[in-house]
């Protein structure tokens, strides 16, 4: 099934492995993620004041482009894009006056009819059923213990989240279906510091230290998440964490799609590990999950 897909800026740069592994894994599940033509940056955070329409233009323009190609769904991978697109979509669906104003501003472009549904890739996976995903697993992630991390925008605010905002399970279900073990991390919903990574990197390091150290101390080998900003704050900022907390022990960060690509045995080139700050390769070799290290023990 072909489905229009919105990459967002990060997936073309720091989240390259996220995109590559997602497209490859989606193909295994018969989804063809087709990049939305002429997409523009979603704006990353939704405007939160009632009188500001300017910052909703970009998300709405993307939704117009979905209608332009006669489609009704738009799937995202990045939690931030997901939230921003979904919130603007809801805003104009609930407020025809605002939609009218924005449509008038769009000038020669087509008007937005409000026919598009914004989805996160994880929702597609849940809809198809984690059992079905389990069937496609060639190389179960046995022996790998993961700490799912949701952060904020994937589940909050609840009107725009994909799962229970206080007790989500979707990442747990997916990682279990892929054969990995899962630990409970009470920090799985705590903020990573988000955009404060620009002006308050120390605050981001404090938050990261708590999230990552809990995971490490509970026996997790790596964190699994779905947001490139969380990934930057929890992976690249480990350098700052280490500087602030000398006792800190590094831990790799993985996108859920990288786990899928590993479990579906799609080859290392689809994983994009080379741009991670904390290299997950030694861990995955140790767990015999990467082919080029040790001869693969084929599962029945």
């Amino acid at each position, binding site marked *: 099934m072909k489905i229009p897909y919105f990459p967002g*800026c990060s997936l073309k740069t720091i989240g390259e492995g996220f995109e590559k592994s997602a497209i490859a894994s989606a193909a295994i599940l018969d989804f063809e993620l087709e990049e939305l033509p002429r*997409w*523009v*940056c979603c*704006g990353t955070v939704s405007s939160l004041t009632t009188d500001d329409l*300017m910052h909703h*233009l*970009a998300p709405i*323009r993307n939704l117009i482009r979905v209608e332009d190609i006669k489609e009704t769904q738009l799937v995202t991978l990045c939690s931030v894009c997901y939230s921003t697109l979904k919130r603007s979509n809801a805003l104009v669906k609930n407020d025809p006056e605002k939609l009218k104003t924005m449509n008038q501003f*769009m000038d020669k472009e087509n008007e937005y009819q409000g026919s598009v549904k914004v989805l996160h890739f994880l929702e597609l996976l849940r809809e198809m059923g984690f059992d079905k995903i389990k069937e496609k697993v060639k190389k179960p992630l046995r022996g790998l213990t993961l700490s799912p991390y949701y952060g904020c925008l994937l589940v909050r605010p609840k009107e725009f989240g994909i799962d229970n905002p206080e007790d989500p399970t979707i990442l747990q279900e997916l990682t279990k279906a892929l054969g990995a073990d899962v630990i409970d991390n009470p920090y799985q919903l705590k903020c990573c510091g988000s955009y404060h990574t620009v002006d308050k990197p120390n605050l981001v390091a404090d938050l990261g230290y708590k999230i990552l150290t809990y995971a490490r101390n509970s026996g997790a080998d790596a964190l699994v998440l779905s947001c490139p900003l969380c990934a930057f704050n929890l992976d690249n900022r480990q350098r700052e964490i280490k500087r602030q907390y000398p006792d800190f022990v590094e831990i790799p960060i993985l996108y859920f799609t990288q786990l899928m690509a590993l479990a579906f045995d799609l080859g290392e080139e689809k994983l994009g590990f080379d741009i991670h700050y904390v290299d997950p390769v030694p861990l995955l070799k140790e767990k015999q999950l990467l082919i080029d290290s040790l001869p693969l023990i084929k599962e029945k």
Partner: protein
Amino acid sequence: MEEEAEKEKMVKVYIMGREFEVPATLNIVKAFEYAGYRFVRGIGCRGGYCGACATVYRFKDDYRLNFALACQKAVEDGMYLTILPFVPAEKAQYELDKLKPRGTVLLELYPEIARCVACNTCTKACPQELEVMDYVQAAIRGDIKELSNLSFDCIQCGLCAMRCPAEIVPYNVGQLARRLYGKYVAPQAKHTHARVEEIHACVFDEELDNYSILVKEDVEKLKKIYVEREIKVG
């Protein structure tokens, strides 16, 4: 009768608020001059290439602001006209040889592109009808190739920079991308490199010296050589 037909068609325009009748065949620059204004600065090639005369105009009873190169746009009845002398804009300092064509270089040198809200106002302002907003977006995600292609026909008139609510100077970002693309990304022409090496190796020096002598001593002979030179076609 005949005289009447030959009489130029006149249109009514408003120059900085004052009404004038000018011939309909004139472009905006010439209409100003017809009305008695003289341009000392701010008008360049008058051929649509340099971008110096980019301007804005409105029609009577129309809220829309229109954009054009004043030397290219013919006057129409009811136009409200002005001439914009210059759009102040900042250009980043860089040494092209020291830059790498990686995607983030545009954000490093022009970090304000991160303020783009994709409102498309720049695209609406472009007299070259470029998709300016799309190329600023390409800049944010570091797509140098897309950015150079989309901005290729830019003449740096500055209207996008003046209209941008995020105070971005799109045309300078495009210029940087085209330079990076030309230097590092686009395939190099091998024959050009071969020729440059020949020049460095002084292969043509003797021939050139001979011509230099002819410039002084026998121009007619030089002309003959020029006319009869070998021309490669295709």
